[in-house]
């Protein structure tokens, strides 16, 4: 019988991270679009700001990858 626990756990780890990132980025993105519309010179800041929440999904990915690979 296949042990579904690990893949499901990995999925949750990754999925929640992605949802979190998406949520954060949607807000930052819309605000960033507004800011850039008014002050194009802040483009650099905005790119960085939008990229910041990516940490969440990346950490989620790392955790899930580690679960799958290490808990085999």
């Amino acid at each position, binding site marked *: 019988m296949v042990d579904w626990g690990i893949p499901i756990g990995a999925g949750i780890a990754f999925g929640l991270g992605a949802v979190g990132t998406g949520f954060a980025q*949607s*807000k930052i993105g*819309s*605000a*960033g*679009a*507004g*800011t850039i519309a*008014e*002050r194009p010179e802040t483009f650099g800041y905005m790119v960085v700001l939008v990229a910041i929440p990516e940490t969440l999904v990346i950490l989620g990915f790392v955790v899930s990858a580690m679960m799958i690979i290490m808990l085999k």
Partner: protein
Amino acid sequence: MATSVNYGYVNARIRGMKSRLLGRELLESLILKPDTDAIITELGKTPYREEIEKAAVQHAGLACIEVALRMDIARTFRKIYSLFKKEMDEKYARILLNRWDVHNIKTILRGKNIHEPSSEILGCLIPAGQLDEATLVELVKQPDVRGVIDLLATWRIIYSLPLTQHFKEYSEKRDLAVMEYALDKFYFAIALDTIRGNTDDDRIMREMVATEIDVTNIRSVLKMIRDRIPIEEAQEFLIPGGAVLDEKRLVLLVKAGTIKDAMKQLAGSPYEFLGQVPEETFKQEKISVFEKELERFLIRKGTGWFFGDPLSIAIAIGYVWAKFTEVTNIRIISRLKMADVAEKIIREELVYV
């Protein structure tokens, strides 16, 4: 959820616009300029550049600045309106804008009442509200006061309601003020009505509008005391719906008889500060001093919204107030500068720096 995302965008844009407001240093440098032309040159280096350039084609000197400021206000308010319209419910923006509509309608009625030429009336309009230029031009074309009201009704513009209802009284008394009071009260009633809801935005907006009503009422009360208006008539000039001062309390204020006593009654309310103006102001009954304090209070409160919830209407309110203050300040500086008023006095006259 949808609204908060939109607020992210709208408020980010508004914050961006805010960051382009002129700082205190720039106002200070304007005060130190030797003449009007120097002020124009300096403003030409700020975000007012485009408006200054456009205005400079037809006007020079002070007129250039004032026309540019007016165009800028109109443009800014329309921009905010279109931002709100595109991104979410525009009802809040409408409240902010409608005061210009009221101003414009009043001006047209006043002008028509004394048969002022159309060009004169058009020159006094500020198309920053919901009634766009096309509407205003067509309104001014009407032959008389009744025509203006009828056209408003024909176009289903809500302001025709209070005007129609009070037209009879106006034509009997030949007193335009009757309709103006109706219009003013109607504006506030509509505003309060739109924001009766229970959302955070409604609450914030309600607080601001109610505070404005308070301030307006206090001002009216001061004028009433000064001109010894009988209490029975007082109600006519008061707007219901204030934040702190309801009608009963306002009537009590009028009953106090002297400004000093009335101000004493305000102790404990947010308007306590009015009791602290110089003693001789009470004696001279100089309303403008109180008014200035009230305006400062309102502006501080208005701009204070910047520190409110970043994902709410608060930011827009803050910006509108800050922008309005800035334009007023520039106008004060340039006009007083032209009249050769001492720098110290200019600084005193500035609304809020």
